[in-house]
């Protein structure tokens, strides 16, 4: 019973905040609502018995991505333009609605093979085994590390001042 109530609450929070991000006029508030969306997705992960992933979601999305988005908004200061939609709004709306309808139809009509096993109570050790253990995902982990390094360097190069000097202070 608790799970049902929590799911509906979190789902409604997710959809309302997502709609507010898309339709809202003030982009700073939209970014804060995005953080709320990330937070409720972390709540959904808790319902799904993914405790480690829920903490990672809060740490990376709320603590890093949302904060970086806020930083970019504060540095660019173009707040009022957040609500403007371009001229494709009607075709985009029709396309998105059709896509959602197709997805929901396929979700409801597919006979999913639900596993009878009970989910793990604590996933941290099992995830570590899966990522770093024998026959696991160690190669993708290393590729991800290289990707992160490359993106960090790329971001530094992109925002560096053009005359080769760091802007001080």
């Amino acid at each position: 019973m608790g799970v049902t109530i929590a799911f509906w609450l979190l789902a409604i929070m997710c959809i309302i905040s997502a709609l507010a991000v898309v339709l809202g006029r003030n982009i700073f508030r939209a970014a804060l609502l995005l953080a709320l969306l990330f937070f409720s997705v972390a709540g959904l992960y808790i319902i799904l018995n993914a405790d480690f992933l829920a903490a990672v979601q809060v740490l990376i999305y709320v603590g890093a991505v949302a904060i970086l988005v806020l930083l970019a908004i504060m540095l660019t200061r173009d707040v009022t333009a957040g609500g403007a939609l371009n001229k494709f709004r009607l075709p985009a709306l029709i396309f998105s609605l059709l896509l959602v309808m197709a997805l929901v139809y396929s979700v409801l009509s597919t006979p999913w093979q639900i596993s009878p096993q009970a989910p793990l109570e604590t996933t941290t050790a099992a995830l570590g085994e899966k990522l770093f253990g024998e026959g696991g995902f160690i190669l993708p982990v290393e590729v991800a590390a290289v990707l992160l390094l490359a993106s960090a360097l790329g971001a530094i190069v992109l925002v560096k001042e053009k005359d080769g000097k760091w802007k001080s202070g």
Partner: protein
Amino acid sequence: MEIGLTHFLTLSAVLFGIGLFGALTKRHAIAILMCIEIMLNAVNISMVAFSRWVAPVDLTGQVFAIFIIVVAAAEAAVGLAIVMSIYRARQSVEVDKADLLKG
């Protein structure tokens, strides 16, 4: 009604649709990035839901979700850096105005 796999997949589809609509129609570059983050989160919800109901002990879906989170973080950093450099060059973050090649 018991909350099952289809509930989470439907929620994921709806969130993906909202994010897609925003990404297609927004003018503000940072807003587009935010909508892309919504889409990635929607995909993550479906991944973890699959992991919970289809492979609850194997956890492959959660591993995929972790990699999606890593890529999303990298994408956010580079994307925001690009937005910052566009803003420096054009004094605007509207993607319609970033048309340097049009002359």
